[in-house]
């Protein structure tokens, strides 16, 4: 079931109405059942895997709460890490690991052959695995109390708005919300609805209708784009992935808010970032803060000297890249960002004064955006060779050019990409909330109506979100 499909609106209408009238405990039980039904609509057997993850971490949390001795607590943590990451590795990385093992073995002169396994990746597994891991790590660190209520814990893991594509919610943020009855105020319902419309517009119109056709046209491995086509496709992909993913996050936050729950913000005008650390404060915030708290800082963060800091950054970003998908292109993407972050740290003190002025800031934002775009080439390309070919094309080794299917489509994508990036650079600290305040209620209603109108009239609905595959 997709947020953009008509049946979801009916599903949500039922959930919303029940949540308005049911007593608190019944409401939580109903929300859990609705969340499992939402997940089962994709592939019912995988609900068992999801429930397995719930039971594992709930049980390990309880066991951890029963002892103060560091040894057993550490053993329980290791068990949780092995269980969660083991499942993730089996479903997500098994083929990747076997392919690379075969390649290595063949390179060493051994003749090894293995048929690829036909593994279906459970949707959202990367998200809920990180969510449950954060719980056991926090319990181990004694940063949060053990959750003894199975219903609350299960709802924390499976809450349907954020189950399949985030934001990655921490137990410390969500579990306290389940301790007291919550009912959304009329302002929260209204704002949740408006956020849903904004997210729907980003996903269904901007990502799927405006950007996707251009990206698919020129990122098809078999086409030979010219340099400008490769750039336009890359700008379009930057727009597509932002609108697809942040659109999902907006819808998830809006739905949760209308039900009375708060989810963390996941994006904040990332293409208005000045520098790469700023970019990661604005892009997929729930993942970057997760990686910081559970990987970068435990590795030593920036406390062990310059070289070690850069190694930590690189390692964190490489693993962050691998989290996105089992392919070398994602590893390269993560490595690219790790390198940019290291470079930024190394050169920060030599940035000339004139670059700190207004023009310098704009220049910095444009440079940051273009470096991020180069990373997107690896993220989107079908293979490493394809990515390298595209980057070479962008920098002068221009292909003969693919046939232009629709100049209108190209023009629309170019205008929307320029508008999107321009707006974020112009007002990098202005979110939907601030825009709405500036616009006032009348203009907010008019813009929302126009967004809905464009979404409904575009003719085709139901394209899955990019981040479902991660």
């Amino acid at each position, binding site marked *: 079931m997709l947020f953009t*499909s008509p049946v979801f609106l009916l599903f949500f209408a039922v959930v919303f109405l029940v949540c308005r009238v049911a007593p608190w405990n019944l409401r939580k039980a109903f929300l859990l059942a609705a969340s499992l039904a939402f997940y089962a609509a*994709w592939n019912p057997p995988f609900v068992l895997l999801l429930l397995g993850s719930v039971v594992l971490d709930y049980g390990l949390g309880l066991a951890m709460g029963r002892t103060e001795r560091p040894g057993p607590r550490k053993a329980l943590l290791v068990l949780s890490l092995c269980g969660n990451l083991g499942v993730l590795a089996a479903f997500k990385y098994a083929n990747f690991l076997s392919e690379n093992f075969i390649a290595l073995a063949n390179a060493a002169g051994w003749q090894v052959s293995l048929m690829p396994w036909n593994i279906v990746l459970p949707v959202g597994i990367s998200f809920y695995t990180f969510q449950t891991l954060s719980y056991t790590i926090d319990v181990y660190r004694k940063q949060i109390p053990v959750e003894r209520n199975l219903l609350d814990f299960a709802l924390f893991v499976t809450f349907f708005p954020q189950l399949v594509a985030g934001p990655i919610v921490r137990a410390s943020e969500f579990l306290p919300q389940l301790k007291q009855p919550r009912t959304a105020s009329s302002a929260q319902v*209204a*704002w949740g609805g408006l956020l849903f419309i904004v997210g729907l517009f980003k996903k269904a119109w901007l990502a799927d209708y405006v950007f996707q056709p251009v990206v698919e046209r020129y990122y098809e491995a078999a086409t030979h784009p010219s340099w400008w086509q490769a750039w336009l496709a890359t700008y379009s992909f930057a727009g597509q992935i932002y609108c697809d993913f942040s659109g999902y996050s907006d819808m998830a936050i809006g739905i949760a808010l209308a039900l009375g729950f708060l989810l963390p913000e996941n994006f904040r005008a990332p293409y208005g970032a000045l520098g790469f650390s700023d970019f990661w404060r604005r892009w997929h915030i729930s993942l970057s803060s997760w990686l910081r708290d559970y990987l970068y800082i435990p590795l030593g963060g920036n406390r062990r000297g310059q070289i070690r800091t850069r190694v930590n950054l690189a390692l964190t970003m490489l693993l962050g890249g691998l989290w996105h998908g089992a392919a070398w292109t994602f590893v390269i993407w993560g490595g690219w960002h790790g390198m940019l972050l290291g470079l930024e740290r190394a050169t920060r003190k030599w940035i000339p004064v004139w670059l700190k002025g207004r023009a310098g800031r704009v220049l910095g934002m444009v440079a940051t955006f273009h470096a991020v775009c180069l990373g997107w080439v690896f993220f989107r390309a079908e293979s490493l060779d394809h990515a390298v070919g595209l980057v070479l094309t962008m920098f002068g080794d221009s292909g003969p050019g693919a046939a232009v299917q629709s100049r209108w489509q190209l023009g629309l994508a170019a205008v929307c990409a320029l508008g999107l990036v321009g707006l974020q650079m112009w007002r990098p600290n202005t979110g939907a*909330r601030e825009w709405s305040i500036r616009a006032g209620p009348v203009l907010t209603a008019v813009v929302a109506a126009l967004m809905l*109108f464009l979404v409904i*009239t575009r*003719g085709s609905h*139901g394209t899955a979100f990019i981040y479902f595959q991660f």
Partner: protein
Amino acid sequence: MEPHSSTSSSEQAVPPPTARLTVLAFAVAGALVLLAGWELVVRQLGPVPGASVRPGRQAAEVFLEPVGDGKKRLVMFGSSRVENGFAPVVARQHVAPDFDVRNCSMPMGSSVQMLEIAQDELRAGDVIVCEVWPIGFYEDRAAPDLPEFAKYFGASWALSRFERAISDGLADNLLAFSSHGDPMDRLRLTLRAGLVGTNPEQMNASEVQMIDHADGWREVILKDQSVENWRKRAAGNVPKPSHLTATQRQERFAQMLARVRNLDTQLAGRGVTVLFVCMPSSGAYKAMEDTTFPREQYWDRLAAVFPGRCLHFSDDPVMRGLWTPDESHLETAGARAFSARLGWWVTHTLESARPPLDP
């Protein structure tokens, strides 16, 4: 990964002053008013000429049309070559009467990918003819409309029948909900008319007439029958080969072939027959295909894996003589001849594969 403060969710706890139910209600009501107004405008102006139809939906609907009692499906999956070149109405006359013949194709469609998506709907006795359009088939390319096609089947995130009933029902009855009512398309044509004074669909309409049949055949009737004129038009229309290296291309093909072999084994176990056909092409287009996908490295490997179940047009005395005006697609007469010949070949192949009757 610089240390930074986590975004506080408390920001959302205080919705902006504009967040009022009246604002939300006005937004929804405004959208409905706009939709109603737009519906009236589109009905007044008529559908956008040549607006994008949804080939994925069309192909899925042709395939999913219920099969009559005692009938089996004979379906041809493939690209626009099949769309234009396979006339079920003709093929039907050359196959056993219990076959319900359908053309299930879409622009740039790869037959194997379509078969993978539709496999759960097949039943014992069904016959699938997979078109081998070299670029799409050997490189395992995904057609732009494949996701639309997939939405109608039980694949991941497929639309439920209920959802389909709602969205297709709206699209069928209200122009504003269909691609014919897309305001951006209307804007595009209005701008184009203002700038150029015409639209590209009108130019195409002077060369060919297209008739969409219910069984999936998109019949191409040439208004200009001059071979010489069509040769001129075809010049320069040859797609560029991919920028995959020859090795990469062969790797993709090898992976795809392994997949098809597995799929074929599963389907054969369920009593479904899969056949492969390469449709006619000519001129520079064919030369490009022959150079990029040498027959001995591609077609012959496929034929070796599926012996007796592959037909290349250049091996068939009838098919190799058919005219492809744009070097890649058949027009009406060619489509009729091709379909008749294909029907004959399918019947012949099925009979050859049938075990001898008990004495």
